[in-house]
């Protein structure tokens, strides 16, 4: 149990890092989903994991049995999961809107708010879109 959880967190973070490095916005958002769940699992581990000892104070006692998991960490995860769910939903909607508005999922081609940078790997037509209010940089 104590080796399994770190392994899962490690694999999740590794996959997330791979996805986050992608130029495709959809992959980036999936990476965010994975890494935020890795953080939730780390928080889970902070509350001490134990098998078959529910965090319930037994009758007649005033404190939890020594081997019980700390229920506060689980309450914190619950909060974090709800927040994470909300933010992820927003991220997916924003991704879809970005695709509709900007016509691309390639983060390197999204240069509407910043001066376009001439790049060899981005077609000139993709960056020449709406750059109102932004002065084009002179090519080097």
């Amino acid at each position: 149990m104590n080796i399994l959880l770190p392994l899962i967190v490690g694999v999740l973070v590794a996959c997330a890092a791979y996805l986050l490095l992608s130029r495709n916005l959809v992959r980036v958002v999936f990476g965010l989903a994975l890494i935020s769940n890795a953080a939730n699992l780390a928080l889970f581990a902070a509350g001490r994991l134990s098998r078959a000892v529910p965090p319930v104070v037994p009758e007649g006692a005033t404190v939890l049995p020594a081997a019980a998991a700390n229920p506060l960490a689980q309450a914190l995860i619950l909060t974090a999961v709800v927040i994470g769910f909300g933010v992820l939903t927003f991220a997916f909607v924003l991704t879809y809107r970005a695709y509709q508005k900007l016509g691309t999922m390639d983060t390197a081609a999204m240069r509407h708010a910043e001066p376009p940078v001439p790049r060899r790997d981005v077609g000139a037509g993709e960056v020449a879109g709406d750059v109102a209010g932004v002065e084009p940089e002179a090519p080097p």
Partner: protein
Amino acid sequence: MTVLLPLSLLVPLATAVAAFLLRRRAGAERAVSLTGALILAGVTARLFVAVWADGPLATQMGGWAAPFGITLVADMLSAALAALGGALALLALVYACAEPRKADESHGLHALLHVMLAGVQGAFLTGDLFNLYVWFEVLLISSFAVLVVGQDRRRTDAGVKYLVPNMLGTVFFLTGVALVYARTGTLNFADLHAAVQGLPPGESIDVGVVFLLLAFILKAGIFPLFAWLPASYHTPPVAVSALFAALLTKVGVYGVARLLVLVVPTGLGPLRDGLLGLAALTMVVGVLGALVQRDMRRLLNFTVVSHIGFAVFGLALKSQVGVMAALFYMLQDMMVKTGLFLACGMVQRESGGETRMRRLGGLWSAKPALALLFLPSALALAGIPPFVGFWGKLMLVQAGVAAGAWAATAVMLLATAVNVLVVGRLFAQAFWAPAPPDRPPPLPLGPGGAALLLGPVLVLAAAVTVAGVVVEPGVQVAGRAAAGLLDPAAYLAAVRGEGNPG
């Protein structure tokens, strides 16, 4: 008096609900929004007065005693930030109401801004690490929405670049919370302070602290985690950008101050000096970035980055004067930034909405009074006496020399010199350069716009000047805030002493 603490959160949240319900009715929405901001400014100002008179105030939500319940606590630092934030939010919202109504307002811009204000106030006033995380999320989620609510292409693009790094920052934050909790078993700042002192030798919460610091310096926009800031802050209307620049990045700096000075006053070893290096790099990168910008609004973004470096420089010095200088710098920078952003908004309006540097000009002859409104904030940013920015920089230099951080102090002076150049270039281009021949007419104002526009800019220009001439009260506030962080006995007593009110 402790009722003021929950009120500072309830007022913006209630205003947000009302403004959202009234979002289709132009006048009513703005009236509700301004009334809410006025009440919030009043409540936070009263809170500041109470803390100034009686020391830290704390209350436990739900009546659960200190380390178990949800603590709201205002020491001098929190109260000063909350009060200044409330006042600046009111000024920025008044300015925003001078504009003719745009699509983003009928989509709930005012409601989102008030939720953001609640998040900012919550972050300043909470006494608990996990609640700080929750308020961080509240202000982040609402700022995401504020950024993209107009749905134009530039704002959508900026929203993507703002969202991804900041979301990663909250993941770091949560991981840090997990690691700190696993080692100490508590998340209350006051309790953590004691728990860290009581750790057996060889144990520390440094790894967790580093994760938390990563989240804070990302939110503050410190090198190397700042690239999202200049990519996004120039796209919303100028009043919204002013709020972002004055409040959101400062929450990151506040987190660094609370964590490094109150919770882990010692430890971390060479990492503290690393923070000094990062602060120096932030100043340099920010100011050089500002120097080469061809767009006024993007130039402002880079000055935000640069001046965060100044504040963190003081925090990284490990001395009482350093912390005091940093807090004074942070407080005056909030004021100066809002003033400068709003003044630049007026320049943009007079230039027909143009922000490209070479399309500005001619305002010296066309609008000489505007130059008078622009100069106090601009000169304060450059650090020229008698404006308030000079004193902030002077205190930082003194603290740096006293701490023997010669290299970083030299870098700071160099950055300040380049900063004068940045501000001079902006002023010369906007005011002294000849007006472009085909300049579009000034943008139209909303009903009653001229007074709503002029009021906040005038107040801020006057505030920056007066705070520079009568500098003693500001220094006293910063001094007390620093003393409260470095010797938290009163803070700890306030958090622990308040029993069950029921």
